[in-house]
């Protein structure tokens, strides 16, 4: 009976650490995509400033509250603006950045296609 009890306890503890580990992975993923606004060129994950440490705690709290990754990004975006995200979506400031490569690719493709057609 004692043997079973120990096995059960071990199983429970292992499960608990893996759940904690998963949560830590999620926190790391999110904080890697958040810019530390008072540091130079560091993410919240990399930084050990007061600002970054508070954000790490807040991200953990928000995950515990059941917010999804997208909801957490939106939460910080609302407070600090797009600048806090390393990977901002398409908006009026970034659409050139997103569309220019696509445009260049299409124009280049059209030129190559035309040249090839000519040769054939």
């Amino acid at each position, binding site marked *: 009976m004692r043997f079973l009890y120990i096995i059960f306890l071990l199983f429970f503890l292992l499960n608990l650490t893996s759940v904690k580990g998963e949560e830590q992975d999620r926190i790391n993923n999110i904080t890697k995509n958040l810019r530390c*606004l008072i540091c130079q060129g560091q993410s919240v994950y990399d930084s050990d400033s007061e*600002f970054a*440490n*508070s954000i790490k705690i*807040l991200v953990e709290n928000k995950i515990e509250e059941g917010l999804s990754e997208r909801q957490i990004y939106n939460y910080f975006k609302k*407070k600090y603006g797009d*600048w806090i995200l390393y990977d901002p979506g398409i908006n009026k400031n970034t659409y*050139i950045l997103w569309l220019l490569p696509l445009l*260049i690719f299409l124009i280049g493709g059209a030129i190559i296609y035309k040249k090839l057609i000519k040769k054939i």
Partner: protein
Amino acid sequence: MKNKILPFSVIIIFGIIFFIFYKGLQNSNIYTPDKNISSDIPSTNFKNFNSNIIFNSLNFFQDDKVYLLNIWSSWCIPCRQEHNFLMSLKKKKKIILIGINYKDNKKNAENFLKELGNPYDQIFIDNDGTISIEWGAFGVPESYLISNNKIIKKYIGPLNQQYVDEINLLIK
């Protein structure tokens, strides 16, 4: 004519790209946060400095009063510089001063207030810095002017005479 279109369009595309980058060079790459904001106050739990009673920020602020929420700490040197300005605002009596004690030791905070005077009508504690982040703060000191349950102005860094004059003008 057809042969000329390709080099011509390449030059135009390069011209446009050059223009965009040249314009970009003139932009400042130093991030300056937006100070003129009008946003609703966030819902945070305020823990009282002396009594440990917890209030929710949404129930705390009254519509007909103007508040200045100031984030401070005893270890922060610029907070010492702005303290005189907070003391002068306290004399006005038209504004309620709320202090948020940021990541501080209670004893040190009490000594700080004993030494320089206590300008605050209420002080709350922010031990882990999360309340300040919920308010959108970058660090200490930082102040928020609140009226009608909205943040109408944000002051990043220590208050100075210019800011105090502006606040006095706004609460007239």
